[in-house]
């Protein structure tokens, strides 16, 4: 089968296997959603608190670097030894993948939130939690969301590895060439890519809704010229996915 015909056949494949594709899309989203959700629950409070205290920047950056350096397939292999095959295994591996961008972006966003505004808030007698949630968090939202979006794309496009460890999702089609042929792989790949792009767009839309009006342009400005090392690190991190 030539590559061209495989690309052409991928569209009939979609109509013939629509039930399978939809079923595995649901599984794919369930898996990715669980991983991103758990990563948020772990990384966001940590990033918020450390950023607010301006402590642990060294720890955060190194934790993120180590997390990013772990090859996902190797993590899955190690987890096969520890927890065996299935949902738990792949969720843990994807959480490991999702934490670094969320953690660093949240930390840097809060740590760098306008220090003068924070001092003014403290001087006016705002409590620490109010300063964090009502001054620092709104200012950090563009960065927090950038981290979330990066993680979402990583996780959705890496989730097909689940099929290697007895998990479900669109990977079930992608790793089974003998059953679904190249056209099936290509069809499933379109779907995964579409999910990742949709997740990115959805997060961008949510970000726009949540970001206070005057801050909506800040993010683009930040990307044109970085102001310090953390900007550079974040810009680079955004361009990396397994």
């Amino acid at each position, binding site marked *: *089968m*030539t*590559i061209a015909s*495989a690309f052409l056949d991928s569209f009939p494949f979609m109509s013939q296997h629509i039930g399978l594709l939809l079923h595995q899309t649901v599984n794919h989203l369930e898996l990715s959603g669980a991983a991103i959700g758990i990563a948020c629950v772990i990384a966001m409070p940590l990033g918020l608190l450390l950023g607010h205290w301006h402590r642990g*920047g*060294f720890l955060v*950056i190194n934790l993120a*670097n*180590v997390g*990013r*350096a*772990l*090859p*996902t*397939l*190797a*993590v899955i*292999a*190690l987890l*096969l*030894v520890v927890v*065996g*095959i299935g949902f738990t295994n792949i969720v843990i591996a994807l959480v490991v993948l999702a934490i670094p961008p969320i953690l660093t972006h949240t930390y840097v966003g809060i740590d760098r939130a306008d220090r003068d505004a924070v001092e003014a808030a403290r001087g006016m007698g705002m409590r620490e939690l109010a300063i964090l949630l009502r001054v620092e968090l709104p200012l950090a939202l563009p960065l927090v969301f950038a981290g979330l979006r990066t993680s979402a*794309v990583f996780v959705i*496009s*890496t*989730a*097909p*590895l689940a099929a*290697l460890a007895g998990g479900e999702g669109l*990977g079930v089609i*992608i790793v*089974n*060439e003998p059953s679904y042929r*190249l056209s099936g*792989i*290509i069809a*499933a*790949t379109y779907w*995964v*890519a*579409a999910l*990742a*792009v949709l997740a*990115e767009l959805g997060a961008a839309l949510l970000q726009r809704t949540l970001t206070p009006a005057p801050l909506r342009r800040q993010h683009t400005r930040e990307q*044109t*010229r*970085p*102001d*310090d*090392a953390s*900007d*550079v690190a974040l*810009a*680079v991190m*955004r*361009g*990396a*996915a*397994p």
Partner: protein
Amino acid sequence: MSGLQRLAGGQPVIPNFGQAPSCDTHNGTFCWGWFSSHVHSLFLPALLQHIELTVIAVTIGFAISFVFAVFTYRTRMLDSPVTLLNGILYAIPAIALFQILVPLTGLGILTIEIALVAYTLLVLFRSMVTGLRSVPPDVLESAQGMGLTTRQIFVKIELPFAVPAIVAGLRVAVVTTISLATIAAFVTDKGLGMPIFDAMQRGNFKTEFIAAASLAVALALVMDGLLVVLQRVLAPWIAADTQQRDRTPFTTRLRRLAVSDAR
């Protein structure tokens, strides 16, 4: 046999180890005997192949990205198309890309390298452009005012400013490539992914999983560590920044450096 063929081969087979020690036959957590008898025949070659795959991919990726990045920095073109391409390529699962390339470029190293280089390009491109753009306008203006030529400005000012970002990008590119290269073994028997798929085919043979995965993790951490050392050598001012002590803005320190360099 590639991982693809192994997985497609139907029933996972617990290998018949003959008079193998009971650890092997009972799939014990880690069988030293089996490991030490396979270091030279399996793990060392796989590790070397993995390093080779990574170094080739990152070197080619670096050279291509550099050309594109300098062009983009000078002309301000290519920026948004590349960023868009970036988003789309990263949305494609690597395990699918490797398979889709097979009919085009075969089951050899070429297929693996094309995919690996593609994934490094965008990280490196982005970091280079970001780095070059981190030169503050006033520094460029004063350099022009001092009579430096465009070439001198590039070598003495723009490149040093870009070094931290480029090294940061290199770190990401290297660890990402190491990670993706394990998946490459799904289509071609190369690198540390090969024993991982082999272990899956043997009915999840734990010793092989632990040995191969640990080597892959260790390789990524060691390479990342080496690049940190490289970063400290090329851009010593970055170390102070991550330690949080020195609150002097990063650009201020770079500016000092650039000014002293221009003298």
